């Protein structure tokens, strides 16, 4: 039996129409899932009341374990246990330091293959297992349909890494409402959207990633004005510093994977203890490696990790410079990520900004809580409607002659954004061309990250230089790039084939999706039919409602066109054939494109009129 939650005034929904949404923090070390119930965001614990789910996956011959269960097996079977998979997302073998993983990694061309007892797995598939686990936890708490999820990513994630995250969600059967940046989610959790105005720094040091963002908040509007970071800096690196120090205290060489894993765990415990006490005394027996006796103080640890702390300070300076702000102009500093518990980090940032830090929400939970609040708002449950405007973290450019990068979308541009660029052919009768898109701030192609090669085909044959191809690069609100092209003189839409340099292409995703369905074909079909029916009904209602509201915008002929499409969609529902329903949905979509445009213009007019009235009242 479904239990009721308290809705915001006027937002109560009918039975079976609750708009449940979740927020997911897919972390390097731990992952969390949260939701808003009765107006309050809370972390959803698993059946053992654990809120932090270790981002660890273990592959056995016929079982997959995720979280705590996988951790308990990690020391016995490190080769089949994958941790810190987030660092492999959207990466190629050559980007990865294979020695930092106990697993057997393999070069699979556009992705890193991980050898397991269940064959070769990609980072996307491993992440999908973590997401499935989180989805299951949420389903146990919310005995109702879940509309979708907001998933957080580091602000510094590039296009390939964001795409990989979205692909993982797709494999896990999660509808992604939006990918949002972790720091932005933290700002939402701190309620910085309410009443606060000013410039805020979000300092996020997690298990494996670091990023710093500067947000400008005013009247419910969030703008990320600068972001910097390092996708390869986090608590793990501080562990590694202690690990090195520990190794220095052992005479025997540590060449055994299991022994190394044990030592790694010890290093992590020492780091955590240093948060509580000034000094940690180690007096520990390590089986084959013998006995270790040593002492580590906070000061000594600060000395050992000075180079890591410097990296965070340098990035902070760069972000301030990009934002054109001084440290003294910052109105608040939000601390996010478990690693900000380290006194070393707290005192450094306190001194740098010369103010108390915002750290009263649990730094491990704050991102997931903010994501849940954002998800709740996106599906329409919240009474306040702030607007979150994010930016693209790294510039997008294309390769030109001499392997020089021509920048087309500068970093920190507000999303969504699109830029057009004109290209021409250099040979008579040329019908195809290649566009290489890269991401990064450097001038040479080799110094930037290759994102994808787009091959344009179907250019009408003309003399060299006569064809003018306009290529539009669109980056959407998830920070994901799409490209379209048109030959201007003939209006021919050139077709585009994308070959991502990193991550999986659409064929690979399709294969994985198919193999992940373990249902019989008939079940699969009936489930797909049920889903498309729900979608069609929703669409029908939405268009009908839109017509009732804004019919006056349309000529009789247009209304007729839409009404016919509506009626056909309704009839197709009786026939119960998936492809037929889908086809009629597509037709209704085409028929309402112009109407949607007019409605959007009317919204703009209304918004502007509202603005004028507000000004007159002031």
């Amino acid at each position, binding site marked *: 039996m479904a239990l009721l939650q308290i809705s915001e005034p006027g937002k109560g929904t009918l039975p079976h129409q609750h*708009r449940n949404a979740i927020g997911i923090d897919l972390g390097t070390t731990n992952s969390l899932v949260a939701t808003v119930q009765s107006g309050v965001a809370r972390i959803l614990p698993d059946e053992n009341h654990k809120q932090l789910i270790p981002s660890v996956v273990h592959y056995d011959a016929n079982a997959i374990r995720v979280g705590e269960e996988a951790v308990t097996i990690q020391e016995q079977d490190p080769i089949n246990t994958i941790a810190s998979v987030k660092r492999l997302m959207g990466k190629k073998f050559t980007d990865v330091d294979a020695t930092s993983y106990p697993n057997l990694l393999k070069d699979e061309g556009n992705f890193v293959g991980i050898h397991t007892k269940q064959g070769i797995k990609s980072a996307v598939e491993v992440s999908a297992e973590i997401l499935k686990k989180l989805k299951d936890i949420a389903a146990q708490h919310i005995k109702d349909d879940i*509309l*979708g999820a907001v998933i957080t990513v580091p602000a510094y994630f590039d296009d390939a890494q964001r795409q990989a995250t979205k692909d993982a969600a797709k494999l896990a059967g999660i509808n992604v*409402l*939006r990918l949002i940046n972790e720091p932005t989610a933290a700002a939402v959790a701190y309620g910085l959207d309410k009443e606060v105005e000013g410039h805020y720094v979000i300092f996020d040091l997690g298990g494996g990633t670091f990023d710093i963002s500067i947000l400008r908040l005013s*009247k*419910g*509007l969030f703008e990320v004005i600068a972001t910097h970071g390092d996708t390869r800096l986090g608590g793990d690196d501080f562990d590694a510093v202690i690990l090195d120090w520990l190794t220095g205290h052992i005479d025997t060489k540590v060449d055994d994977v299991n022994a190394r894993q044990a030592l790694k765990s010890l290093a992590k415990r020492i780091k955590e203890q240093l948060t509580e006490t000034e000094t940690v005394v180690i007096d520990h027996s390590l089986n084959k490696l013998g006995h270790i006796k040593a002492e580590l103080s906070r000061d000594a640890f600060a000395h050992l990790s000075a180079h890591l702390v410097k990296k965070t300070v*340098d990035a902070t*300076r760069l972000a301030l*410079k990009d934002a054109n702000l001084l440290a003294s102009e910052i109105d608040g500093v939000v601390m996010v990520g478990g690693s900000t518990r380290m006194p070393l980090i707290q005192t450094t940032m306190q001194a740098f900004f010369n103010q108390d830090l915002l750290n009263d929400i649990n730094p491990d939970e704050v991102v997931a809580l903010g994501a849940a609040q954002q998800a709740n*708002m*996106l*599906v*329409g449950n919240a009474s306040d*409607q702030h*607007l*979150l*405007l994010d930016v693209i973290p790294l510039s997008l450019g294309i390769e030109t002659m001499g392997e020089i990068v021509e920048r*087309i979308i500068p970093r920190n*541009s*507000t*999303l*969504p*954004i*699109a*830029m*057009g*660029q004109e290209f021409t052919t250099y040979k008579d009768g040329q019908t195809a061309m290649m566009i290489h898109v890269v991401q990064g701030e450097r001038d040479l192609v080799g110094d930037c990250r290759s994102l994808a090669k787009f091959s344009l085909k179907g250019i009408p044959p003309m003399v060299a230089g006569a064809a003018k191809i306009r290529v*539009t690069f*669109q980056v*959407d*609100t998830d920070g994901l790039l799409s490209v379209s092209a048109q030959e201007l003189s003939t209006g021919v839409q050139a077709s585009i084939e994308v070959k991502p340099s990193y991550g999986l292409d659409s064929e690979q995703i399709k294969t994985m999706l198919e193999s992940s369905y373990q249902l019989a074909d008939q079940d699969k079909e009936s489930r797909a039919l049920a889903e498309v029916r729900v979608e069609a009904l*929703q*669409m029908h209602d*939405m*268009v009908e409602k*839109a017509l009732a509201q804004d019919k006056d915008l349309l000529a009789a002929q247009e209304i007729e066109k839409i009404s016919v499409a509506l009626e056909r969609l309704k009839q197709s529902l009786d026939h119960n054939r998936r492809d037929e329903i889908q086809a009629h949905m597509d037709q*209704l*979509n*085409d028929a*309402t*494109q112009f*109407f*949607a*445009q007019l*409605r*959007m*213009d009317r*919204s*703009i007019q*209304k*918004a*502007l009129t*509202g*603005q004028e009235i507000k*000004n007159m009242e002031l």
Partner: protein
Amino acid sequence: MWGKFHGLSQNYFEIFQLPIQYTLDEKKLDASYRAILSSIHPDRFVNATEAEKTQSLMKSTLVNDAYTILKNPIQRAEYLLEINNVSQHVKLDNAFLMQQMEWEERLEAEEDVVPLNQFHDEVLTDLKQKFNHVEVLLDHEKNFTGVANELAQLKFLAKLAQKIKDKTFLLMAD
């Protein structure tokens, strides 16, 4: 103008109900931008039809582009030239080229924060003067060709100011 998005043909000033001129009511621009995006941003269309999602994405993109260009004083001037069909190709006069070389040499030579800050202030004063001049040329004299020349110099000065700032930043970081 390089790399602008022209998918939808509406004058950028009209989008925000602003007069087509260089002098800008920045408060009104900000307020209108906010009001418009609050109503059409893709975040408001999560439960909408595909057609509405597409339109929301396209319009929000256009509004973002328009806002960025109007907000930036150089790009706003260039946009005014563009909609008046004035070419922005100009030859910098020799006097300015000589001055350019002097500035570059000075930037190269300065190794201390204080003189660099002073240099930066001087460039900013120059920039301010030129912006005022652009405003007069565009809004009062309607001398578009004159603007193209000033703009070319403005762009150089803006870049120079940035270079001085970058150098100061590096010196301070050491």
